[in-house]
């Protein structure tokens, strides 16, 4: 039995379809991260799961029970809001126990549940305080505590970390991950932050314009994006895209015609329909570009800007005729992520290199034409392994 299921959820606002037949099912208490650019419908989807917004069509099932028509309080869910949404006139303990109180549970049971949740989150000392007296991180814990106290089968998180500073965000991310392993519950976590998605999810649901682009374990989405959107969305710095044409096609591969780059041949998917002259987009991740002189193909370039965020350095390189479309700097420069040990400076001349294997090719519709690659890392941490 699926412990959580969305069955062809549709949501329309006027003429606009905000969610178009969204389906998803989980069986073993997964941590699902729904990620996508703003306006993709991910928050609306979460509200429909919570019951805060009605769906125009489709069903929501929790533990096999159809909850589509039920009130939020009757769905066996709990939700953590971006703004925390704590009740300012209640103490921390009252905030956390409010759900059980509304459910008419006895006082002793409520107190036990609150104390238990507080000790998990290390907020036992704050139980008598009011939300106003707490810092942002503490408030977030209380909001999570309020969800835990209800011991729901599904936890919903609506961008819970976006109001925290960077250090706290990392810490809460780890804590929520540990909490997930401790609680026997499905988590649906909405965020626009790809780092949160990549690090926390057992599976990522990548949404765009009201539809799902791809569902899978994080490494699968990163290594085998089904289309250009997924390839461009995950990964920071972003993948480089270059517009090119098909030079010739044979059974296993095809030649690429791109000004400034000769003799590139890449493997093709058997089902890929390509004809000579078709417009295609090449994709190359910044970390797959070498600056040490190696690689099957070489390009001469000049460094236009270097960023050094610490662990690695990111350089934007003017590679002459080879220009990136939608480049990060808006100037058509290629983004290269290099080891800090190969220092680059502005205006340096560099030789870029890459292997044909590293190239992704997308057709005019954006679909991936290059074959599936093996995942070099084992699949993302999931419940069964940890």
């Amino acid at each position, binding site marked *: 039995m699926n412990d959580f299921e969305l069955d062809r959820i549709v949501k329309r606002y006027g003429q606009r379809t905000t969610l178009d037949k969204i389906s998803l099912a989980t069986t073993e208490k997964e941590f699902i991260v729904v990620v996508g650019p703003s306006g993709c419908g991910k928050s609306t989807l979460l*509200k429909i799961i*919570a*019951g*805060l917004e009605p769906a125009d069509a489709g069903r929501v099932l929790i533990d096999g029970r159809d909850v589509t028509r039920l*009130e*939020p*309080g*009757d769905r066996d*869910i*709990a*939700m953590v*809001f*971006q*703004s925390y*949404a*704590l*009740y*300012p*006139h209640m103490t921390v303990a009252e905030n956390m126990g*409010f*759900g059980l109180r*509304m*459910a008419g549970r006895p006082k002793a049971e409520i107190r036990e549940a609150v104390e238990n949740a507080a000790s998990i989150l290390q907020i036992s000392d704050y139980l008598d305080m*009011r939300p*106003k007296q707490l810092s942002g991180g503490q408030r977030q814990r209380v909001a999570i505590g*309020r969800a835990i106290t*209800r011991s729901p089968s599904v936890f919903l998180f609506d961008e819970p970390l976006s109001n925290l500073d960077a250090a706290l965000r990392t810490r809460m991310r780890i804590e929520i991950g540990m909490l997930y392993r401790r609680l026997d519950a499905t988590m649906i976590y909405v965020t626009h932050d790809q780092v949160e998605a990549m690090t926390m999810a057992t599976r990522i649901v990548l949404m765009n314009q009201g539809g799902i682009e791809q569902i899978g374990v994080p490494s699968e989405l990163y290594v085998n994006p089904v289309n250009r959107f997924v390839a461009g969305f995950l990964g920071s710095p972003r993948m480089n895209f270059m517009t090119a044409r098909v030079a010739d096609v044979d059974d296993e591969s095809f030649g690429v015609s791109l000004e400034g780059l000769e003799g590139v041949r890449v493997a093709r998917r058997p089902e890929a329909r390509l004809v000579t002259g078709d417009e295609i987009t090449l994709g190359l991740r910044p970390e797959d570009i070498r600056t040490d002189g190696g690689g099957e193909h070489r390009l001469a370039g000049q460094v236009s800007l270097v960023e050094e965020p610490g662990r690695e350095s990111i350089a934007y390189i003017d590679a002459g005729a080879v220009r990136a479309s939608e480049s990060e700097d808006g100037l058509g420069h290629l983004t290269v992520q290099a080891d800090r040990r190969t220092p680059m400076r502005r205006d340096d001349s560099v030789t870029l290199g890459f292997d044909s294997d590293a190239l992704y090719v997308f057709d005019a519709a954006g679909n991936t034409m290059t074959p599936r690659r093996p995942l070099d890392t084992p699949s993302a941490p999931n419940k069964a392994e940890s």
Partner: protein
Amino acid sequence: MHSLLHRHRGWLWPTLFLAPGVILFWVVIVASSAESLRISFFQWDGLGDMSWVGVDNYIALFHDPQFYTSLKNNIIWLVLFMAAPPLGLAIALLVNQQLRGLRLVKTLFFMPLVMSQVAVGVVFTWFYDPANGLLALVFRAMNATAPALLSDPQWVTVAVVIAGLWPQVSFCMILFMAGLNNLDDSQIEAARVDGARGFRMLYHVVLPQLRQVNFIAIAITVIGALRSFDMVSVMTGGGPFGSSSVLAYQMYEESIQSYRFGYGAAIAAVLFVIMALFIAWYLYRMLRIERGTA
């Protein structure tokens, strides 16, 4: 000149901007109140010489049966006016929904506020008219005779208060509607997830957020009840036989119509003390609650 202005701008501009308000407040409120209090110790017809009578005006007032009638009526006003905040809240909750046509309903509820109090009084006088009023029509439809409310010493004050409540309820409704607009949506959503709905949602989550609005609604309603004057003046002139008079109206009648300015001033002083005591108590109570939850 320019540098002079520049050097003193720290206090100059605040002073200039505050001056009109401060001057008005002192002249119209503080000085007038003090002068009124002074007059209450004199016998004065408003034109001729003033003669010092000490606390005689107050002694006469406390032996005046009309004073107690007015005081009693003020209390009736106060008690019945307390219906305005809850009624205003109820209507605000009712019209605070996403339904077609509610804009028109809101406008209708808002109407009495744009009307002058005098017009409201006149409308209600007609409404109560035992011969041709709407009330008379209703009674006639039920084969009964309408009571002459405004001529009945027992019911006249209640009838006037009901007229006064109409705009007061609208006013409270506007306040609560503004408050409801400012509710934190995510708190409501969180409470829905927590299983709160209906009355418990209202009591546990909505009302606590409306506490400040509630405070203002009650304070303004109390002040409105204590200073009630226009409705009484328009609808009954204090009658019949002074049975619907209130302190403010009695003060006006004594000073302006009977030329007993000292006596009128004494009534004003008593009314002032009652209001001041009430407001002080109310503020104190609210501050204590605020601090308790701070």
